[in-house]
């Protein structure tokens, strides 16, 4: 692992330079300058800084989420998966899914839906012979998830490591895969997934439009794009309170609990820099998604954007 780390940073840096070259060649980037929190940096620098942020917070990621949001992030993620309402047989790609929160919730949801389906089927089949009953039990045992699968993709190796450990600890074994990949350039073929989710990750992507285009590419026709992200509050009073909490309390918590003030300062600043709900909705529509809509949670602290590839 120690030997791989410098190689990876080398790759990341070289990759960053290559991307910069491509960016200027394609003439698509407005310029190599972008933001990292409230600072102005080049795109390459931004990628590296973000990688380092998550490398350092990976082990304390879940603890910090709980303390910063007072545990409410769990409710947000529950609402998110309920909105997805996946049916058994769904193939989910969870991008920037690091520690696996969405993936685990997805597996739980699909499992319970499948249980209900099987119960309903059994109730309808009251007059079967013993042979037939045992056959149904056998075939359904193999499909307790009903062919649903989730692929967790993250650019950061540390986050994936923590996620794999969590999965082992909580006992999730089947239907789960972990892939190292960049949201702006996914290592998957076209039209492979039913649902693409990115929860609290699109904020950290340097070129959001590229990530959205990749999302469009890997989704099957009829597939759904779902994005859960911190967003903007309309109510001025509430917004002031939220700012107060964000800038005064969160970095302090970061220092006390994780010993890392700067990463959490970055977190809070990046939330302010992220486009508001309607702007993100327009960006999603530009890429070609239909029926794009958003739902505010907690007055706008968090928003769920949803779009379909039609």
């Amino acid at each position, binding site marked *: 692992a120690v030997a791989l780390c410098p190689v990876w940073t080398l790759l990341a840096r070289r990759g960053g330079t290559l991307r910069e070259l*491509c960016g200027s060649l394609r003439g698509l980037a407005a310029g190599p300058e972008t933001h990292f929190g409230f600072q102005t940096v080049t795109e390459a620098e931004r990628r590296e800084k973000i990688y380092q942020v998550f490398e350092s917070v990976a082990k304390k990621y879940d603890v910090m989420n709980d303390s910063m949001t007072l545990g409410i992030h769990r409710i947000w993620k529950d609402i998110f998966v309920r909105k997805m309402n996946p049916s058994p047989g769904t193939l989910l790609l969870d991008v920037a899914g690091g520690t696996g929160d969405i993936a685990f919730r997805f597996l739980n949801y699909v499992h319970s839906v499948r249980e209900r389906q099987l119960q309903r089927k059994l109730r309808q089949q009251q007059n079967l012979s013993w042979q037939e009953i045992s056959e149904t039990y056998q075939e359904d045992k193999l499909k307790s998830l009903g062919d649903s699968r989730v692929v967790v993709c993250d650019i950061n190796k540390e986050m994936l490591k923590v996620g794999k450990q969590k999965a082992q600890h909580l006992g999730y074994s089947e239907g789960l895969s972990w892939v190292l990949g960049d949201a702006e350039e996914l290592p998957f073929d076209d039209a492979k997934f039913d649902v693409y989710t990115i929860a609290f990750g699109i904020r950290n992507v340097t070129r959001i439009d590229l990530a959205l285009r990749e999302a469009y590419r890997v*989704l099957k026709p009829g*597939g759904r794009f779902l994005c859960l992200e911190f967003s903007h509050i309309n109510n001025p009073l509430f917004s002031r309170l939220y700012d107060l909490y964000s800038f005064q309390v969160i970095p302090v918590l970061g220092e006390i609990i994780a010993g890392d003030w700067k990463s959490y300062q970055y977190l809070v600043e990046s939330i302010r820099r992220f486009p508001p709900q309607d702007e993100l909705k327009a960006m999603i529509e530009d890429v070609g998604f239909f029926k794009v809509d958003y739902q505010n949670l907690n007055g706008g602290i968090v928003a769920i954007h*949803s779009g379909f*590839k039609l």
Partner: protein
Amino acid sequence: KMAAAAAGSLRRAGWRLWRGRAVVNWQLCPPQRAIQASAVLRRVSDEQKKEPTVSSSQFDLHPNDYQPEQEPQGPHPSYTGQGGQESEDYESEEQLQHRILTAALDFVPEHGWSAEAIAEGAKTLGLSVAAAGMFHSDGSELVLHFVSQCNTKLCELLKQEQKKVQLGEEEKKPTDQFLRDAVEARLRMLIPYIEKWPQALSILLLPHNIPSSLNLLTSMIDDILHYAGDQATDFNWYTRRAVLTGIYNTTELVMMQDSSPDFEDTWRFLENRVADAINMSNTAEQVQSTGEAVVQGLMGAAVTVSSAEG
């Protein structure tokens, strides 16, 4: 050294992939939007082809395809494009939704009126199961779509009959016969789904569905009475509709728990109710004329008495 060699080959492979992608993106970027916009939405006339051939005239027609904020418009008139090929508009999202719901009706006997049936319907059209996320998770739209379809079919039927009567091919039916036949024809459309119809009724009674379901019911009753030749413009308009709505609803409920062959009991119940209604209106007239006669008699007696005294 091994790591460096591996990194080198990875880098080269990555660069090749990246460059290939850049080329593909560059070439496809301008027309990509139109092709993306038509990943699933078909051309109105074309059943099979999904990708338009590149001709500039087609792109001009499609600004309303990827601006879903506007109301989805119906098919526009077509004209011949540059290549001598007919350029037509793509279907709107609403039309696609109708197609999905129609396909989903086949799965209702097995899955009930639910999001699962819609997901199965979407699958038959070649879409991902996630497309069911476009609809409410309780299956409301499916039921409303079905009811609206039945009403349209009934209207067609009545129109055909009226045409036959006007052409002299058939005799005009007496009112009670007409009403009986119309209600029976409409209720017969429920027979394939009779097992799950109680579930549909309960969905129609959900508070957020009541405006739509009431609307559909009243417009259906309106249509029946219109074709029955109802010309009333007085208070009778309301009483007739209220009575017929009552007859329809009660007959529907009787049909739910009717187990006689071909629902004979239901049709007999219907016959009796219609006869009752017609009798009641006759009786009402009789009561009115009797009342008038009594009043006139009393007035005459009073005049006689007063003139006898005077």
